[in-house]
């Protein structure tokens, strides 16, 4: 039961991550691979504050999210000045560079990771409480992002993504909108990182490698880019399938790459056979076109 609850908590955290990544890459059309590093910033800042400052958990998680948001603004503001493609390259460098920094700093625990993050809730109530918190945050994140993209600001985001030139010609500032979308998406990822740190009480650089991007990207593409519930379907499916493989009792050195192969094959199949994803409507011509143009 404890195992199932932990898997569900992990799925809820990944739903938050995938939904926030979908806002950035699917709705905003901003090509980035650095989402795991904002998750990491949230986790590390939250963990460090909890260990050294002794602040209340909610404050730690909020500050973790703010730190991720600030870092994302710095990254986007510098790289989006030139062209969208540079965000991709800059995000790759940012991800790898910051991980290298985390590995080398003593305060972050170096390659060994950050342990001894205090347990905020103890006893039998711990897992059910975290279950409720993570599921609640996942629901709020998905519905919040859905509300943003369905409102007037969301229509502006779609217009900016599909026809940036026309959007700018109307007097709207595409650059600031991109930065806002990026910051919100990365801030939500930072919040997910904070919750992750409190639940698992241990974070290490390996958990945030660039290969994690493939995992989150898979969830978004498989579920359906630029769809409200696509990332939910993607995250549930892609975390549930490896759990099924877990019961095959394969050794870890086979299990990990096998899970990776499943992820990547699914993305490749969906990219070519159904670019709109499971939740994407291939008959909905404008959305299908937007997904293709992405």
């Amino acid at each position: 039961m404890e195992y199932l609850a932990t898997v569900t908590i992990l799925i809820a955290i990944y739903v938050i991550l995938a939904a926030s990544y979908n806002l950035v890459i699917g709705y905003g059309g901003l090509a980035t691979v650095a989402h795991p590093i904002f998750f990491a910033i949230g986790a590390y800042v939250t963990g460090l504050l909890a260990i050294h400052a002794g602040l209340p958990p909610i404050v730690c998680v909020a500050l973790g999210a703010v730190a991720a948001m600030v870092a994302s603004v710095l990254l986007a503001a510098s790289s989006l000045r030139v062209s969208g493609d540079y965000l991709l390259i800059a995000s790759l460098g940012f991800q790898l560079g910051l991980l290298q920094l985390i590995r080398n700093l003593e305060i972050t625990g170096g390659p060994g990771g950050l342990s001894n993050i205090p347990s905020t809730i103890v006893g039998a109530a711990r897992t059910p409480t975290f279950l409720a918190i993570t599921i609640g945050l996942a629901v709020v994140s998905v519905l919040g992002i859905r509300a943003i993209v369905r409102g007037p600001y969301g229509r502006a985001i779609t217009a900016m993504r599909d026809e940036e030139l026309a959007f700018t010609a109307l007097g709207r500032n595409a650059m600031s909108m991109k930065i806002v979308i990026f910051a919100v998406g990365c801030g939500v990822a930072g919040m997910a990182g904070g919750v992750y740190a409190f639940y698992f009480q241990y974070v290490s650089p390996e958990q945030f490698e660039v290969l994690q991007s493939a995992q989150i990207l898979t969830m978004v593409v498989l579920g359906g880019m630029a769809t409200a519930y696509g990332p939910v379907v993607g995250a549930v499916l892609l975390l549930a399938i490896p759990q099924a493989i877990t019961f095959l009792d394969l050794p870890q050195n086979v299990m990990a790459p096998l899970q990776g192969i499943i992820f990547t094959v699914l993305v490749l199949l969906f990219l070519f056979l159904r670019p709109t994803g499971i939740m994407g409507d291939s008959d909905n011509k404008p959305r299908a076109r937007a997904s293709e143009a992405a």
Partner: protein
Amino acid sequence: MYEPVILAQIFWTGVATSAPHVLMTLGFALTLKVTGLWNFAQAGFMAIAFYTMFFALNGLDLPIFVAVLLAIGTTIAASLATEVYGLQVLRERQSGNLMFFIFTLILSQFIMYVITLIFGTEPQTLFKSILSPVQIVGGVAVSDWDLLGVGLMIGGMAALWLFMAFTKEGQFLTAVSDNAKLAELYGISARRSYRVTAVIASLFIVASMYLVGSHGGVVPNSPLELILGAVLGTLLGGIGRVFAAAAASIFLALIQSFSILVLASRWQNLLLYGFLFIAIVVFPRGVRLPKFRFALAGR
């Protein structure tokens, strides 16, 4: 510490260690110039090239030239298959840059997972020993590996320059990179040019991975980090300027080499990322040296 012979040694080591990076940058930058793609699938092809050689040498006990030929064959096959069944399909669908990016990155990761499943995550080298015979030239230690690296680097650059400047196929690549649609109006097949580019890039990849694998350990994830050097060289050199990208790679290797005078070794890798940001923020279109023009006397 700052004696001339030490500085000369650091300089030579920097130039020699830049060789594999220069070769992979040539392939990466040429692909970007002709196809307009940041082709991260090349990281996967690098893994294919290395592990083919590794398996041929250590699993099948084949001679080195057969191992290299096999690696060339598998890398070209993988590269062409990706071009024909992947990139071409996305081009026909008029997919955006994001789709190309996702495809090349995920393909690269797929290849790495498959290789991890087969070969594990232990660092592997092509040969049992990575020690190379050394001779002292003017107080500077020069290994056989250094000479091979520098030879391949200079040979590769010269061969590419001759190919681009003096062959029809090379000129077609330049035409397609300038304007693919216009080139097609003149009867040049863009598809053929993309495939020729894939083959040339594969040759550079194999040469590069031979040098990397005969000098140190390689794990399945290594190529993804190695390709960042190629990205950085391409950015610093300026998109579309293949030889400037190669020169930038040498410059970066020299910076990393000389940094041992002031930085602890654990921080040296971070330099690369620092330069990446400087390149993006300050030199987004590459570093362009001023052109010196000499006024003609008596004109």
